[in-house]
């Protein structure tokens, strides 16, 4: 689709607006969009926008670095990484955890920062106020500590026993 303002470039920015009493949807190229004040956030990487995305923020993640862990789907909301790059929208709060590696470079690029500073939700305050639960030492860690002690004390029979138990647990 061609830009509705200049008619020359490909439209890659989709804008909804009200003008003269009517609702309008408008397709613009990144240049015209910028001229009209619509694309400041994307300065510098708007040219790699895909052609067919359907929101102003679409292909938001187009330039994200390849992720170290390739989570493909959020179990909470069902959004795949593809859905997110296509629409520029996260599916739910958990998506931020699931796709953290993929999106953080872009978040940093847009905000110049990745750490919140400001008001804290009451829910977060409540969580922070709750006494932290004692880290439950896992059975496995206990066994490993015992093993080290046994080796230190040269109780090799005991050590062999413990090693078997650890193997058994790790195999589970």
């Amino acid at each position: 689709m061609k830009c509705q303002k200049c008619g020359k470039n490909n439209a890659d920015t989709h804008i909804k607006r009200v003008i003269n009493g009517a609702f309008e949807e408008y397709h613009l190229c990144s240049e015209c969009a910028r001229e009209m004040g619509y694309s400041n956030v994307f300065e510098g990487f708007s040219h790699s926008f895909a052609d067919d995305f359907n929101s102003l923020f679409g292909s938001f993640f187009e330039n994200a670095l390849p992720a170290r862990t390739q989570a493909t789907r959020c179990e909470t909301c069902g959004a795949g990484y593809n859905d997110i790059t296509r629409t520029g929208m996260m599916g739910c709060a958990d998506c931020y955890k699931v796709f953290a590696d993929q999106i953080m470079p872009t978040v940093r690029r847009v905000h110049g920062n990745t750490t919140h500073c400001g008001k804290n939700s009451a829910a977060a305050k409540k969580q922070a106020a709750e006494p932290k639960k004692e880290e439950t030492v896992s059975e496995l860690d206990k066994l490993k500590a015992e093993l080290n002690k046994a080796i230190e004390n040269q109780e090799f029979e005991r050590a062999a026993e413990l090693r078997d138990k650890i193997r058994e647990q790790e195999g589970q």
Partner: protein
Amino acid sequence: MSNVVMLTRIRLARNLRKYPFPCRLNTDGKNKVVETVVGAIKNSNSPLADDFDVLYVKDLSEAQRISLVEAHLASPEFISDSAGRAIVLSKDREMSIMINEEDHIRLQILKKGFDLEGAYDVADKLDTLLDENLDFAFDEKLGYLTQCPTNLGTGMRASVMLHLPALQKSRAVSRIAGNLQKLGLTIRGTYGEGSEPEGAMYQLSNQVTLGISEKAAIDNLKNITTQLVNQELSAQKRIAESVRTQDKVLRSLGILRSAKLISCDEAMTLLSNVRFGINAGLLEDIDINTIDKLIFDIQPATMIVNKQESLTAEQRDILRAEYIGKVLKK
């Protein structure tokens, strides 16, 4: 000062932890979010609790929807879809909450004049009261979690609507716009598009929401606004001395008082000239608030809603001319 700044607005984006964001929520899910949020408002100990209207987008006519945008209460995005969307409005329209726009909650405080701290204070209190009844999606590191990552962190957009006729005339706005971006702000026309929007009205907002506190963002916006206002005022003083400018202001008032037909665009341009004339001390017997009310009332969809019947473009232009003439009558 407050005459250059026409409106101040604070918007906060919030989401309920329990539900997926609106883009992955079906109509049933959205309706549940509306119910939950409206319930929380009723149970909150806020001034909004006993005195508000809930409008469901699906129940509104096209003109009613558009007039919400003209009144700066809803976004074009919000009215582009009606399924599972509702807006909560205080009787005076100062407080409003769009439900299921891009986020579950877009809480807005709109104040006349220049009052960023005052508007934020009201928004902050309302947000805190809602937070008691709603579990907001929040992350220690990323702040408020939003559907679009551009709003992460505080989820706050603070903006001021500025009337900049003199800076627009000297083509300074587009030059300023480039610099504003480096300061984390963005400026765009309020009505109409391009470098010379209708009525020389612009909206200046903060752009970055992550890693900058609400207070720092507001201070930044306030500083830049103050500088822009001072630039505008000195430019106004300069051009007000020219006979051409004085002639334009008085002619504009003349047309507004006596026209038989007037389009919204023309009226906006002329009202902007008159508003400038009042600010620059060229017109003394007109109250600037009268002009500001006119700017709002003559918007096309708002006229239809107020008249409570459908109108053709020409009927609107006649009615608009009559109305303006009556209000500005000597």
